[in-house]
């Protein structure tokens, strides 16, 4: 299973595998926001936590179909499905690789982009923490969405339609943590709830995704 992880990481790093793509998309979204809203720093500071969360979510969404599409095309998904390791584990490792190549860079880049949006100082720590806790769920849910649409010719748009409603709870809690942190309020129950969603997604989603892959490989 570690082998699968290392293979996916190597593929993402080398073959022009869209490693920096999500990050660049995140940057562009954040840069475009002031043009749409206006350069008023007080307004930008107020909406910064939400914009950063939304941007990270969309950047994550952008690279989801790559989790399985390449393996599906060259047939290595069939080999992985018949390999002696459980398919659920393979999916989990693929989600982990997606998180390491997309989610983690987003988490690290978010505070830097927060400067552009004039994010209030107490918000930086909470924003990074909420993204670090929330993005694993995005990758795990995304792997399920990718598994559902892997056999389709033009699955990209459908993938967004299927996955975005599933992202809603993570977005609500994550953006709430960042917002409360930025305004200096007590964080409350949002933090354990976000972590709970991430843990539950990591535990359950590989099973649903593996079931979907088996159906698609039939």
């Amino acid at each position, binding site marked *: 299973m570690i082998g699968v992880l290392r293979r996916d990481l190597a593929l993402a790093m080398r073959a022009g595998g869209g490693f920096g793509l999500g990050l660049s998309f995140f940057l562009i979204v954040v840069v475009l926001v002031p043009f749409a809203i206006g350069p008023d720093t007080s307004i930008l500071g107020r909406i910064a936590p939400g914009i950063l969360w939304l941007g990270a979510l969309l950047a994550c969404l952008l690279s989801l179909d790559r989790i399985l599409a390449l393996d599906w095309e060259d047939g290595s998904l069939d080999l992985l499905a018949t390999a002696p390791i459980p398919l659920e584990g393979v999916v989990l490792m693929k989600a982990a690789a997606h998180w390491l190549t997309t989610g983690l860079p987003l988490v690290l880049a978010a505070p830097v982009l927060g400067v552009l949006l004039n994010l209030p100082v107490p918000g930086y720590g909470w924003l990074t923490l909420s993204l670090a806790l929330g993005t694993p769920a995005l990758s795990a849910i995304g792997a*399920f969405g990718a598994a*559902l*649409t892997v*056999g*389709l010719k033009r*699955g990209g748009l*459908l993938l967004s*339609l*299927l996955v*975005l*409603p*599933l992202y*809603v*709870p993570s977005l*609500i*809690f994550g953006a*709430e943590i960042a917002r409360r942190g930025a305004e200096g309020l007590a964080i409350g*129950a*949002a933090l354990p*709830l976000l972590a709970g*969603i991430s843990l539950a997604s990591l535990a*359950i*989603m590989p099973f*649903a995704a593996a*079931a*979907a892959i088996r*159906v*698609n490989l*039939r």
Partner: protein
Amino acid sequence: MKSIWEFANPKRFMQLSQVSLPWVAGLSVLCLVVGLVWGFFFTPDDFRQGATVKIIYLHVPAALMAINAWIMMLVTSLIWLIRRHHVSVLAARAAAPVGATFTVIALATGAIWGQPMWGTWWVWDPRLTSFLFLFLFYLGYIALWEAIEDPDTAADLTSVLCLVGSVFALLSRYAVLFWNQGLHQGATLSLDKEENISNVFYFPLLVSIAGFVLLFLALVLLRTRTEIRARRLRALMARERLA
């Protein structure tokens, strides 16, 4: 005692639904006409809300059926995944657009009701927001059915999506409660209350709810029959081509 699984046989299902469909449809029209006419013309105006309260006879039953349609899809999807009865999953497929329509009706009537009462067409109230999510889930489910060519693959994948979607729909329901306080009133109807609303409004409401349930049943029966016929037609054409 016959087993309920007999109706999973498409032939039995077609026979039974052929007999029952006109009755269900007729009863539904009767209930809807009686409930709505009674509600609209023969009940007094509410002393605070005036005549606008009468939209309740459309709003509450539609909202009720929007949720129940999803629950029905959940159950039939489970039956498909466990026992692989084709009629079951076809019924789920047939129910989805009907449920989506009910969701839209509930949202639209709610907006029309909210405008004079709350002074706004839309607020990001937990109930309203969850209904919007429900609509998105319906859309995703229908889109996945449309996108996949092979019927059995489509049935399996949409069923899995329905299960996962149910979990996340519930999760979103409670997440939005956390996120924003509501403007919407509490539940209109619940079984454990002595008197839900004044009987003058209650009885016509019950009749129109019965009408909506029967309407849903009739539409699902009709659409399931269409799906079964379409599938038979496809099988016949495939056989023709082989011969």
